[in-house]
């Protein structure tokens, strides 16, 4: 799922007067982002079935895993390596889910709001819908109250929409038959590119993307399917640890 640019935060509004306006702005943002995101559940459903999952397994992933990057990655690795690449598929999906930990830490105080005494189920529900989009919409609001509304409205809109469109996509994929003739393998690559695109604003991210692609390609002939992607993750650890490829302005 795409992360929205953080630059569209509105300027802080006058306090007290615009409560209603804030609320409707948060809901408007949520619906716009939510519906656009939910639409591409269709491509996930179709690709998962093309990778060999059945309709139940596909829907289970959207209901329980419910984080687009990990879902696409899991079915992508299974498509290239089959069940034998299961370990790599799990590791790749899990590593892509690490960013949700960071999102959760940012969303926790917003979800809690003023009173700390929330039930465990509400916490679990909040964690369940903590994804790129719900976090991005929440962070784009100007007050905590609007952020809370944006978080829940976006999360719930996408949860419902994503699961409906996943089922539709899985049924369509099931009916297609020969997926290569329909170009679904190229569609999977384009889907990953769409998830990556909004993250390439900084030079460092671009450098990591290029290096990781080269490493994965070079490793493909020598490693089992699934492993080249994991090896490429080392690029992120090395560049991130030493903070390489940062462009500092010339003094």
């Amino acid at each position, binding site marked *: 799922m795409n992360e929205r640019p953080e630059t569209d935060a509105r300027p802080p509004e006058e306090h007290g007067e615009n409560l209603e306006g804030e609320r409707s702005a948060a809901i408007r943002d949520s619906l716009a982002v939510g519906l656009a995101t939910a639409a591409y559940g269709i491509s996930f459903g179709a690709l998962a079935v093309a990778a060999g999952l059945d309709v139940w397994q596909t829907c289970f992933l959207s209901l329980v895993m419910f984080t687009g990057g990990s879902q696409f990655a899991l079915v992508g690795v299974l498509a*290239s390596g089959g069940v034998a690449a299961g370990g790599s598929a799990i590791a790749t999906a899990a590593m892509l889910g690490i960013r949700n930990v960071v999102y959760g830490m940012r*969303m926790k105080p917003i979800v809690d709001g003023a009173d700390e005494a929330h039930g465990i189920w509400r916490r679990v529900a909040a964690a369940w819908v903590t994804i790129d989009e719900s976090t991005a919409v929440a962070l784009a609001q100007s007050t905590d109250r609007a952020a809370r509304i944006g978080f829940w409205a976006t999360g719930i809109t996408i949860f419902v929409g994503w699961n409906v469109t996943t089922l539709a996509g899985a049924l369509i994929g099931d009916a297609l038959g020969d997926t290569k003739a329909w170009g679904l393998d*190229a569609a999977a690559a384009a889907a990953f590119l769409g998830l990556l695109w909004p993250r390439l604003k900084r030079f460092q991210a671009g450098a990591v993307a290029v290096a990781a692609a080269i490493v994965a390609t070079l490793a493909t002939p020598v490693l089992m399917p699934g492993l080249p992607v994991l090896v490429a993750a080392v*690029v992120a650890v090395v560049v991130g640890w030493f903070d390489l490829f940062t462009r500092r302005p010339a003094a």
Partner: protein
Amino acid sequence: MTTWHIILIASAATLALKLAGHLVPAGFLERERPARIADLLTVALLSALIAVQTLGAGQQVVVDARVPAVIVAAALYALKVPFIVVVAVAAAVAAGIRAFV
């Protein structure tokens, strides 16, 4: 391992990560270096998946109809065309090349 095992383990892992963010006190991942690595990890994995999905065929590297499809997709993303449209166009480009070339 069956496909169901893979799905259950991977789903448990990603769900546990989401819960960890909300239930475990903030700390480690808020520091600069771990936060930066977590961020770049997403970029590296997605980019590697693009490379393998575009050029890989089992353990071989091949250039076929997927390459022009991905180039078209990149151009469309640069023009801010919506995700679902780009994915459909990429599929159509690859399918068209395979049908007519």
